[in-house]
Each structure stands twice: as structure tokens, then as C-alpha cells.
């Protein structure tokens, strides 16, 4: 080995370091992560393809009166809108109830309530939704009856994630925030909740999807939505209609999940994205 060969790499190394000399090293320049990336386009394109394929498949079949009645475009569009409306109502209610509950059971003073609240939420999810619908259906029917049952049903997802989201906040961050003289309310609103957003959001997404998937059962209680059509086609044994409605519900669930995912990313503070 001559001095020449060892000299070179050393010089190169020296050139590389020292960019952030005197600051402790290891700095990375700020990177902007956009909310929507190109990859987000994949799912909607796929869903459109599936729906177009479905459309041509249905068109290619000779349909009896009943089937074409069920699959009437106007009816399907209004049923879909209804379906989305019910699902969102449930998701919003779940968040409005479960997030404050999650906050409550993680505060030192009200921590004792945690077992009770969790037991109730567990019960809500564990109880068979169809059974609950039947039970409530004896006394009440319609939109709010279904919203009530399915809200109880989806509660646990958001409650659990709210608790987990608040608990995963770095204790050092909380200690520093408190030590600087932030009030407990300020620590909650300006530190804990923003940092829990990604996890709470994931729970809300799960709740929304659960709602989209279970709202069809609400048709038994006359709540409206695509369930009406699905049940009609199953009852009358119309395979094409059943398939078409099922595919539409599945696409709807996937699309709403996609939308909620973007919303969740948008709501997540930049520094932790």
C-alpha cells in the first residue's frame, strides 16, 4: 500500500462531513411531504374500472322487470347518497362521543371511569348488531334507531384509538410542556390531541367503514340506503341485482376509506407526518 491510495478516500470523507459543524451534526434539511401523492390516484381509478365493468356486465344481460326496477339508476344514486349520509352521521357521532370519553378516562382525576367506559364500549361491539337491530326494531324504526345502534356498535374503535393515541405521546414532551407552565387544558388541546390525531383518525376510519358495511342491515328498520335494494334482490332471488348492489356497497366502502385516509393525513400536523 502506498500513501497515494490511502490519501484519496480520506480527502473525500473530509469533504462530506462538517456541513453542520458545531451544531451536533446529523441535521437533515426540511422536507415537505405533500398530503396527496400520485399513489393516491390508484384506488379511484381501480374503482371506476370495476364500476364500468359492472355496468357493461349488467347491460349485457337480459333483465326482467324486477331486476331493472331494483337497478334503476335514479334509485341507486339516491340510495347511495342516503347510505353515505347515514354512515357519516354515525361516524361523526362516534367521534363526538368517543373522543371526549377517551380524554376523560385518560385524565388522572377521572381515570377510575376507564373500566366502566371500556366495558360499555366492548359490550356495544360484542353484541350482535343484527340482534340489537331486531331488539330495538320492536319499539323504534327509521333513521335514528339505526344510527343509534350502529353508533354504539362502532364506538369501541374510536374510543380505543383515542386512549392509545393519548397514551403514546412521549412522556418527556408532556413533562416539558407542563414544566414550561402550560395549563392542563393547554397541554391537552395543543400537545396531546394534535399528536394523537393520526391514531384517532385511524379509529374514525375504522368506524366509518364499519358503518358503511353494517348500514345495509338497517334496511330492516326502514333506515334507507343501499340495504333496501340488497334485501329486495336477495328476497326475490335476483342474482345479477344482488351482485351489482354488493359490488356497489364494496366500492363505496373502499372509496370512503380512501377519502378518510386523505382527510386523516391532512389533519395530521406537519412535524409528525
Amino acid at each position, binding site marked *: 500500500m502506498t500513501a497515494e491510495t490511502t490519501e484519496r478516500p480520506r480527502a473525500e470523507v473530509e469533504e462530506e462531513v462538517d456541513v*453542520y459543524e*458545531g*451544531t*451536533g*451534526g*446529523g*441535521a*437533515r*434539511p*426540511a*422536507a415537505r411531504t405533500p398530503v396527496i401523492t400520485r399513489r393516491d390516484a390508484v384506488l379511484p381509478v381501480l374503482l371506476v374500472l370495476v364500476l364500468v365493468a359492472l355496468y357493461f356486465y349488467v347491460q349485457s344481460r337480459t333483465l326482467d322487470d324486477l331486476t331493472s326496477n331494483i337497478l334503476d339508476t335514479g334509485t341507486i344514486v339516491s340510495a347511495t347518497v342516503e347510505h353515505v349520509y347515514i354512515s357519516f352521521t354515525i361516524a361523526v357521532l362516534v367521534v363526538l362521543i368517543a373522543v371526549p370519553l377517551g380524554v376523560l378516562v385518560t385524565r388522572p382525576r377521572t381515570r377510575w371511569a376507564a373500566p366502566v367506559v371500556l366495558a360499555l364500549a366492548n359490550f356495544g361491539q360484542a353484541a350482535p348488531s343484527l340482534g340489537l337491530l331486531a331488539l330495538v326494531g320492536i319499539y323504534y324504526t327509521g333513521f335514528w334507531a339505526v344510527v343509534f345502534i350502529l353508533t354504539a356498535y362502532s364506538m369501541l374503535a374510536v374510543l380505543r384509538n383515542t386512549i392509545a393515541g393519548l397514551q403514546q405521546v*412521549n*412522556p*418527556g*414532551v*408532556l*413533562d*416539558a*410542556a*407542563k*414544566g*414550561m*407552565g*402550560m*395549563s392542563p387544558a*393547554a397541554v391537552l388541546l395543543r*400537545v396531546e390531541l*394534535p*399528536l394523537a390525531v393520526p391514531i384517532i383518525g385511524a379509529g374514525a376510519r375504522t368506524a366509518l367503514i364499519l358503518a358503511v358495511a353494517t348500514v345495509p342491515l338497517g334496511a330492516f328498520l326502514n333506515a334507507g340506503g343501499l340495504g333496501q335494494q340488497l334485501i329486495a334482490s336477495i328476497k326475490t332471488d335476483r342474482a345479477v341485482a344482488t351482485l351489482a348492489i354488493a359490488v356497489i356497497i364494496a366500492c363505496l366502502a373502499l372509496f370512503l376509506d380512501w377519502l378518510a385516509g386523505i382527510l386523516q393525513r391532512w389533519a395530521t*400536523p*406537519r*412535524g*409528525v407526518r
Partner: protein
Amino acid sequence: MSEQTLDKPATEGGTSPGSTHGVPISLKKLTKRYPGTDKAAVDAVDMEIPAGEIVVFVGPSGCGKTTTMRMINRMIAPSDGVIEIDGEDVASLNDTTLRRRIGYVIQQIGLIPHLTIASNVAMVPKLLGWDKKRIAARVDEMLTVVGLDPEQYRDRYPRQLSGGQQQRVGVARALAADPPIMLMDEPFGAVDPITRGRLQEEFRNLQQTLKKTIVFVTHDFDEALRLGDRIAVLREGSQIVQYDTPENILAAPADDFVSGFIGEGAALKRLYFEPVSSLQLEPDTGSEADLSVSPSDNLHQALDLMVGKGVSSVAVVEAGQSRGSISVQSILARVGRSDGARS
């Protein structure tokens, strides 16, 4: 009057670092007892912390040093006893008011991850209701003080900084509202040794202009030596075994517990605190022309240089002028003499 001194950072603050100097803190029979334990975690501690000094609490883990420190800004509520800041009993203040007047730096740093560096530093001034212009100016000033270029770092997020840089921001944040007091709990404990050494040195220099009253907790005795104006060696129950300057603790450890804590090489460590100028200089022999120390260097540096170069004496040069020389023998004689004086 004392209320006013404490109020100063809240209402006026400063445009230059260190416009508010430290105020004394006194702990009187300060006690923390946790329910279900017989022994107090902090047992009736009495201590006077002088204004403008760094007092280092050092002791084994579990000795109650952190608990004692955290009672000062009431992150832990005392069970008994009194804390006075500048003569004022802090029990009269509410928690948040008290904490906003005390800088707080912890080992975990605790920068708020979703806020930019600027917002993190601006935290306490914002809580105190400073106007935007003043906050922005103060943020830039503080970042500069801790050695971070505001242009480059202001808009970054904590995770984009290295551990050492994050703790610089941690210090800037604690200083932002110009508090007279700082509490620091192993602030440099989580960074690598090289960065730690640099941060310690810079912090020491910074404090010479700031003159805050600083309570610094560490389990690292060498860190205590490097930073402390005074060191309180604590043992279980936060009992003060010895409370003195680093020089005095090294020269005369109170008991075996303290000697054990000082560890190996107490005599060599003592050389850190003796400047070259404290020795009688010998005439310059001029033999090793390249090697020299300045009178303000410490004897440890001088000895290190001589041992490292394998020479027995070096020239002492001040502002280009030779003042004489010192030899290994004279340093050895010095160590021997103070050892003799002790025993």
C-alpha cells in the same frame, strides 16, 4: 419587592440575553413523602442556593436529587417544608405562574414534535402574552445564543435535528422568557460524549454572561466538576453529604461516600482547578520552543501536554511574551503539597 424581581421576565423580559440575572433560592426543611413508604424520598433538606451560580446536585440514582429539583417548580408537590425564591415563599404562586418564571430543561428534551423550532422556543413568551414582533426577535436571538443559525433552523421540525441540536433548542426554549432560574435535569445525558463535551463547554461560557441561578442534576461527577460553581453530593433521602466548591470537594472529601463518588484520580482532577499562573514559574530554558501554555490554562492541560509530548517542561507564553516555564516536577510538588496539607 421580591415579587417584582420575579415578575420582571414576565412583563419586561429583555432584548439581550441575560438581562435578568439569577436570584437566590432557599430550601427549608423540604420534604417529599410518597404514600405507602416509610422513608421520605426527600427528607427535610435545608439548602441555600446562591444567586447566579450553577449548583449541581450529584448522587446515585434514587437518591432524590431529581425529586428535590422538581419540587422547586412544583412538578412534584412538596409534602412539607418551604421553598423561597428571592425571599418569596413560592407556595403563594399558582403552578403555571411559577413555572413560567423558571427555565426547565430535561434529559428527554421534550420539544413538541408538531411545532417548528421557532414555535417551540416561543412557547413561554407566547404563554406570557408577548407581542408577535418581540417573540420573533427573541426566538432568533435565542437560537443564535445557542449556536443555531435562525435562518436555517427556525422553520424546521424537531425530528429534523440531531440530538445535540435538539438540546440546544431545549436550552434556547428554557431561556426564551429570560427567567432568573433554570432547572436542568441531566440535560446532556442523552447525547454522544463528543457533543456532550462541546455542549458543556458552551453552556459554561454562556452562563458567564447569563449569570442565572441554575440547579443542575446529574449522576456524572465529572460533569459536576466541569459545570458546577458548587456541588451538592447527595445520598438517599436527598441528604446533603457535602456542599462545597469542586476544588474543596476534591481536596477534602467529607467521607468515604464522597471519595467513592469522586472515583479514581482525584488528585489529577484537582489540577483542572489550578491555573498555570498559580505556580512559581521557572526561568525559560528555551529547549522546547514549539510547546507552550498560557498562564490561564490549567495545570491538567499543562501536564497533559508534557506527558503527551514526552517532555519535562514547557514554556509559559502570554500574548506572545515568554513568562518562564513550568516543569513536571513543579506540578508534582504542587499536588504532593496539597495532599500533605490535607492529611
